[in-house]
């Protein structure tokens, strides 16, 4: 059972293991090149990186000793992996519960006399082993990257890898419990993603606003950040590690209890059918219209992301005073904020911080849309659609159009919420700036949708994993090109770079056209691949 369950994670292990290895190796080995070799150069590098760290604290945790290879590796190599493994944990947990049941593997196992508790334990243990391989790959990447320059801190890196392993396992356990409550893979992915993203944002919120520290202590991401054993003078945070381990045990036990109290292929929170009201319901007229019918089917995804975007837009814009005032003691950052947005640090903060953060949300939304397309394929809905007189190109065109409309809606409500929240605290965002920063977000998100669309059209089972890796590599690219002084064309592989900073400067037209070209080429390739592939194989 354990061996078989472990085997089910093989592609995740290979994919995420490679990402962890490459990420750790590249970031560690690049330190010498980007930071210089003299103490003075490294100190200057650490100062500029600290300023950058504050700006991108929604992605990376707090930095320590950035003038050392170990401190830098902890921040740049181990830090972003928290976001990468988040995607894996959500997908793997949904697959381990709902996927196994939809494929009737659970029926088989239960019929073979395996107890439900043992099944839960085996699934958790199998993912634990898989996550161990990925954490070990990260550790190895650091060691290989540091070895040519300094003696690697094997123990410190092992401590951080231990934290990463527990983070993966605790996220998986949380999503595994969530998947017990709902009845479909799609719902398990959606609710799991919401829960995990909220936990992540608790930590992010506390990074920039220390009055929210209490909130972050319920987040496994905070517990992961708390172990800084790789940085000089750092430590293994026993409390954080114990909380992570405790979360795994508690959610594992709760999952086993939930599994024991529900039917196979049903969620614990199964709603009772409401016959009387439903019987009179007529189908929505939206189902009769191309594009609208796809949006209708993904309406809860759309509503969910719009709500999340509004909440965070309101939070970031509304807390501009508190955050800017709290960091105004950092001279470099204060100067940076004062220089931006016509000397108004609050406007500059909203422009830089919110329009940086919303990129993360839109990438998540695009990945979620692609997950729906991939599910249509694997769940047999595409087969039903293609059994009607519908050309295959229409399927891809509808996906593209629905993505365009959906992204435009999320961007619009996010920008309106930002403006409203900023106005509420007396910060005036001019409409032109807001518009200039907002509309390029549409091709930005469509870039992800188009790349995901290619894989959803040809290899739907791998679409989410591959898109997650592509998004991560794009982020790495964005961060490493300036640091490693690579040619500018290399930046074009990063959507963040292509979006630019239109809220602070101007629209980056070259980047914009590249994003449009990627979108057109992506959906074009998706159309060709869709026409050439076999459906339901």
């Amino acid at each position, binding site marked *: 059972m354990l061996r078989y369950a472990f085997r089910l994670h093989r592609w995740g292990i290979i994919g995420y293991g490679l990402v962890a290895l490459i990420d750790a190796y590249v970031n560690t080995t690049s330190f010498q090149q980007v930071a210089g070799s003299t103490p003075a150069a490294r100190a200057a590098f650490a100062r500029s990186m600290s300023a950058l760290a504050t700006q991108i604290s929604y992605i990376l945790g707090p930095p320590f000793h950035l003038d050392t290879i170990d401190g830098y590796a902890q921040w740049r190599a181990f830090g972003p992996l928290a976001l990468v493994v988040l995607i894996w944990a959500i997908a793997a947990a949904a697959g381990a519960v709902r996927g196994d049941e939809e494929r009737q593997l659970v029926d088989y196992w239960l019929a073979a006399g395996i107890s439900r508790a043992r099944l839960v334990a085996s699934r958790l243990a199998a993912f634990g082993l898989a996550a161990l391989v990925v954490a070990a790959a990260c550790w190895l990447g650091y060691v290989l990257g540091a070895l040519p320059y300094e003696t690697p801190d094997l123990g410190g890196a092992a401590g951080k890898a231990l934290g990463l392993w527990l983070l993966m396992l605790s996220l998986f356990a949380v999503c595994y419990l969530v998947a017990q409550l709902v009845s*479909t893979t799609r719902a398990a992915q959606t609710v799991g993603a919401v829960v995990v993203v909220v936990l992540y944002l608790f930590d992010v919120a506390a990074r920039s606003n220390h009055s929210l520290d209490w909130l972050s202590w319920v987040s496994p991401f905070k517990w992961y950040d708390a172990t800084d054993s790789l940085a000089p003078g750092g430590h293994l945070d026993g409390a954080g590690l114990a909380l992570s381990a405790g979360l795994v045990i508690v959610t594992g036990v709760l999952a086993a209890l939930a599994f024991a109290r529900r039917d196979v292929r049903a969620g614990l929170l199964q709603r009772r059918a409401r016959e009387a009201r439903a019987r009179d319901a007529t189908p929505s007229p939206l*189902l009769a219209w191309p594009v609208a019918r796809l949006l209708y089917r993904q309406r809860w995804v759309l509503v969910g992301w719009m709500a999340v975007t509004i909440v965070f837009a309101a939070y970031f814009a509304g807390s501009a005073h508190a955050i800017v005032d709290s960091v105004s003691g950092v001279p470099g950052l204060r100067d940076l904020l004062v220089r931006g947005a016509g000397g108004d640090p609050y406007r500059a903060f909203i422009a830089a911080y919110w329009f940086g953060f919303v990129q993360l949300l839109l990438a998540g939304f695009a990945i979620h849309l692609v997950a729906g397309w991939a599910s249509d394929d694997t769940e047999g809905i595409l087969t*039903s659609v293609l059994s009607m*007189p519908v050309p295959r190109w229409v399927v891809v065109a509808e996906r593209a159009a629905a993505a365009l409309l959906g992204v435009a809606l999320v961007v619009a409500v996010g920008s309106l919420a930002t403006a409203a929240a900023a106005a509420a605290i007396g910060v005036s965002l001019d409409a032109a700036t807001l518009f200039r920063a907002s509309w390029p977000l549409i091709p930005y998100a469509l870039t992800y949708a188009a790349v995901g669309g290619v894989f959803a059209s040809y290899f739907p089972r791998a679409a989410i994993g591959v898109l997650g890796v592509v998004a991560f590599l794009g982020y790495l690219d964005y961060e490493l090109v300036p640091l490693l002084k690579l040619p500018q064309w290399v930046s074009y592989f990063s959507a963040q770079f292509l979006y630019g900073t239109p809220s602070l400067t101007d629209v980056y037209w070259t980047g914009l056209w590249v994003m449009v070209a990627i979108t057109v080429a992506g959906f074009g390739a998706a159309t060709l691949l869709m026409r050439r592939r076999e*459906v339901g194989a």
Partner: protein
Amino acid sequence: MTEAIRTRELTKDYGAGRGLFDLDLEVHAGEVFGFLGPNGAGKTTTIRQLMGLAFPTRGSAAIFDLDCHRQAVEVKRHVGYVPGEPPQFGGLRGREIIAYLGAMAGGVDRARVEALCDRLQLDVSRRYREYSTGNKKKLLLVIAFMRQPRLLILDEPTSGLDPLNQQTFNTMVLEARRDGATVFLSSHVLSEVEHVCDRVGIIRAGRLANVASLEELHEIRLHRVEIEFGGEPPLDAIRKADGVDDVTVEGQRVHCVVRGSFEPLMQAVAGAHVVNLTSHEPSLEDTFLEFYSGSGKDAVPASC
């Protein structure tokens, strides 16, 4: 005769001997054609190629003279389809799924949909995930039949249906044929199709073993016979009788299998004291299994 379906050397080679090989098949317009074979024989592979969902390694398939691959969209204007594996529409209600897929087909006749739902006793106000396997199958049948297509391609359509609904389904198939439709239905259970099919194609290990009319299949049916004699059974005569096999003796009882006519067996026992004689007519499934076992491999006359 007009052909609704025509395949020529249709092959889908998955390697290692798996797939579908050199399928030459003609299904006449207006007939009900049963496509029979055990699991993994190639039934669904054939159907997926007819529906343009999978592409042939070589050979061709046409529906109403339209190429199933190149003219897939045009083909589907004429086809109603029930997939072997029900899709997972999740939280959509049955009525929403009908509206969703019906709009893609150019709209649906609400009265016809309601009539079909009533016949199959399907509550389309329920969410799809609340449906049992049988109800999912019923919804797929409604979707396939609602457009009154010229051709119905049904992949194991009765699996999951209770006997009452199977009867309703049989009636629906016969009515569709009466109205001029062609029906191509696959099954691995002969008894499910023997009441409605005009002809049956038997596929085995990816190759079409034979095509026969129902009457031809009936001709090679087996009968299991048990004869109780008042004295010594005429064993030599029974064993020598044409079409009599598997003769076993239990005291004064003789068990045997009779293929085709009873006449040779009756002549063999004519002078003996027969106390009792019982004959069990096996179902077509037994005939089918016998056919697969190899002993009757060449017994079914080809009429394709």
